[in-house]
């Protein structure tokens, strides 16, 4: 098997995650889909690292994880406070800009 298949898998996961972001209304699930996309990227980085034979890709993946952690912390905080204010976690309800 060619390791390129990892990349295809990564692309597939990324696409699924992106579609999920677009389809789901629950902010938490949307967030999870974002995490899925990040993870798909991480996989790609790791495979690149293997491809090039150095550890830079893994480093990037590592940073991505850190940033993702930070993002999740802030994001979930936002969701919680949104939920407190609106009693709903649906992204469609936060549409003050609509007509």
């Amino acid at each position, binding site marked *: 098997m060619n390791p390129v*298949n990892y990349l295809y898998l990564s692309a597939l996961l990324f696409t*699924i995650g992106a579609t999920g972001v677009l389809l789901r209304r629950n902010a938490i699930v949307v967030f*999870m889909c974002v995490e899925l996309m990040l993870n798909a990227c991480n996989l790609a980085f790791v495979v690149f690292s293997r491809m090039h*034979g150095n*550890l830079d890709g*893994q480093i990037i*993946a590592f940073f991505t994880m850190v940033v993702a952690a930070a993002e999740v*912390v802030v994001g*979930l905080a936002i969701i919680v406070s949104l939920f407190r204010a609106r009693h709903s976690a649906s992204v469609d309800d936060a549409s003050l800009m609509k007509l």
Partner: protein
Amino acid sequence: MSATAQLAAYTTSTGEAFQFWVLGTVAVIGALCTVLMRKAVHSALCLAGTMIVLAVFYLANGAYFLGVVQIVVYTGAIMMLFLFVVMLVGVTAADSLKETIQGQRWLALLCGLGFGVLLFAGIGNASLTQFAGTGRANANGNVQGLAALIFTKYVFAFEITGALLITAAVGAMVLTHRERTERAKTQRELAEQRVREGKHLPPLPAPGVYARHNAVDIPGLLPDGTPSELTVSRTLRERGQVRDVSAEALGDLKALEQRAEERLDRTRIEPPHPRRTEEASK
């Protein structure tokens, strides 16, 4: 190490290929379930599964440190955080999958499909045949290699991500923490306020209907049989977890009376609706 030799090869070992196809399938299924599950809890669990699979793939690709971190940090910490939030927001609440924005679903699928095709085409187009493998890079140990890079080449980025993490932590606290801007009202003041507003002078009515339904999520019934929302805790009301049992309770009452009638050899009436019991026991 045979593993490193294998990693440097153009193709992987059969074992790894087997592992890829099996676990890859699991990962894709997990991802799909994340997107498609109606309840957030299920989505979270499926995502956790996918992440674990990915951790295995990291290990298979020579990123030992990342593999472990993936399990410990991601699956262990972040996903747990998700679960906590899901608990806060309401575990049982299931999303409706009905689309409300016109054309959104089709557009989303079209974009997703198009994007996927493009990615696949891009990857297929690139001549990715040379795999150097991580053998040499991991020669002094994967963790040591990473550490050498992080604390030399990427030291600034590392420091900045540290700052970012702290900021995020503070930010999360600021966002979720609600400062009390005024003194909490005493019991007496609350009572006076109630009197002044002229509503609910007595304590709120208690939930529960008869002895069989004394759960807190079942509203008490008014004399005419309609449920009173007031009897249920506000938190439950806001989560939408009030169980409406008025019709059911009335039915039960009716059945009870009927049974009493039957006992007393009165007219026979058809049996009560069978669904009622299931619902009630839920």
